[in-house]
């Protein structure tokens, strides 16, 4: 067995990345309601857990999850986020990949923790809200109107960021368990997992 990614792996990665992106952005639309913007790190990882766990059954080599994170980051950059998701996608994708590799892409415990880590990349879209707070909200009010911005500002005090990290990680773990149960219920029986 050679460890280099072949064309079949790359195509599998592309297909699951597409599914992830479509589901992710459908959930992301909920962010137009101010309260749900803060809850996005909770909702998205849970829903995307199902395709991701199926994707993991196809991953046997190092690098596929990293590429997935990178491409998701690039797509987020193209659809109007800052460049930060590209970096976080790469970093957390790589970290998740290392965790999966430590479990030889077999261990269930590693895949749960790895998906939790991978889910943290979503914070890349939210980091500017704290780091470049003033300019970010000025930019936001020009596009979303001042009422939306005032609501969001009230919802995001500084400590919220650390809460969100924990929320995203926990949501990733819940999503992984959900994905696992769907996997057992449907995909194993259909013979594609």
């Amino acid at each position: 067995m050679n460890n280099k990614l072949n064309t079949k792996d790359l195509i599998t990665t592309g297909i699951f990345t597409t599914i992830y992106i479509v589901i992710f952005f459908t959930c992301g639309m909920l962010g137009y309601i101010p309260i749900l913007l803060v809850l996005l790190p909770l909702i998205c990882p849970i829903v995307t857990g199902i395709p991701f766990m199926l994707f993991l059954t196809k991953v046997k080599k190092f690098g596929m999850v990293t590429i997935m994170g990178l491409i998701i980051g690039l797509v987020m950059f193209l659809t109007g986020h800052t460049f930060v998701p590209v970096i976080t996608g790469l970093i957390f994708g790589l970290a998740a990949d290392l965790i999966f590799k430590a479990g030889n892409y077999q261990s269930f415990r590693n895949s749960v923790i790895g998906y939790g880590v991978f889910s943290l990349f979503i914070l890349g879209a939210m980091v500017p809200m704290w780091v470049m707070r003033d300019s970010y909200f000025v930019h936001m009010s020009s596009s979303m109107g001042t009422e939306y911005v005032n609501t969001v500002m009230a919802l995001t005090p500084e400590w919220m960021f650390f809460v969100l990290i924990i929320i995203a990680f926990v949501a990733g773990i819940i999503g992984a368990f959900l994905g696992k149960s769907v996997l057992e219920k449907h995909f194993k029986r259909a013979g594609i997992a």
Partner: protein
Amino acid sequence: MNSEILQSSNTISNFKIDPRTKIIVLVILNLMVFGEAPLYATISMVSIPFFLLLFNKRKKVALIYISAYTLALLGEIFLVPATHGILNLLIVMITNLLVRMMPGIIMGYYLIVTTTVSEFLASMEKTRIPKMISIPISVVFRFLPTLIEEIRAILDAMHMRGIGLNLKTVKSPLTVLEYILVPLLINAVKTGDELSAASLTRGLGNPIKRTHICEVGFHIQDIILLTISVAALIIFLLFK
């Protein structure tokens, strides 16, 4: 849209643009519409996909796009400061979606329907982007329309069995999610197997350098487009 995805480049007019130009224009266009660019610079960028679609005989999409964009822009300028409360949120939601997202989506639509996978891969190989990045990205571009088509078909089928957006589904969102995601994923895995079989037959898995039958390269139209985009970007950066 379905028939358009399967078309190869030879049915489209000879007004060809290099995939790299399209991507650069897409990136700059997105930077401009989301940033705080002067209005005239944004409008000159926003009209690029309109003209491109017009030259590629997609008049209907082009006209719908430009009229919807104009309406949304006027709405954002005049209606948003004048309204309050829920109505304001609603108008902000709609105009923001149209003004910020639509130019990028239309440019992306143009990119997808006029670029064949082989053209894209050829241009990526010319720029020496590693296969590990270019192949998954080309799959994403190629597979996205198919996936949306598939989701629509699944929603139709589920609607026939009474599973859709109604009161019952609000009570059990997870079940609905399962009913939609499971067939989608099973389909996607099958499509993936077929796609990799097809591309392996075409020699995508070969380690040696591939030759290409389609010609990619920068021509006069690419240079014009790039000049406009870069000029708009410079104006955007200077007057920020």
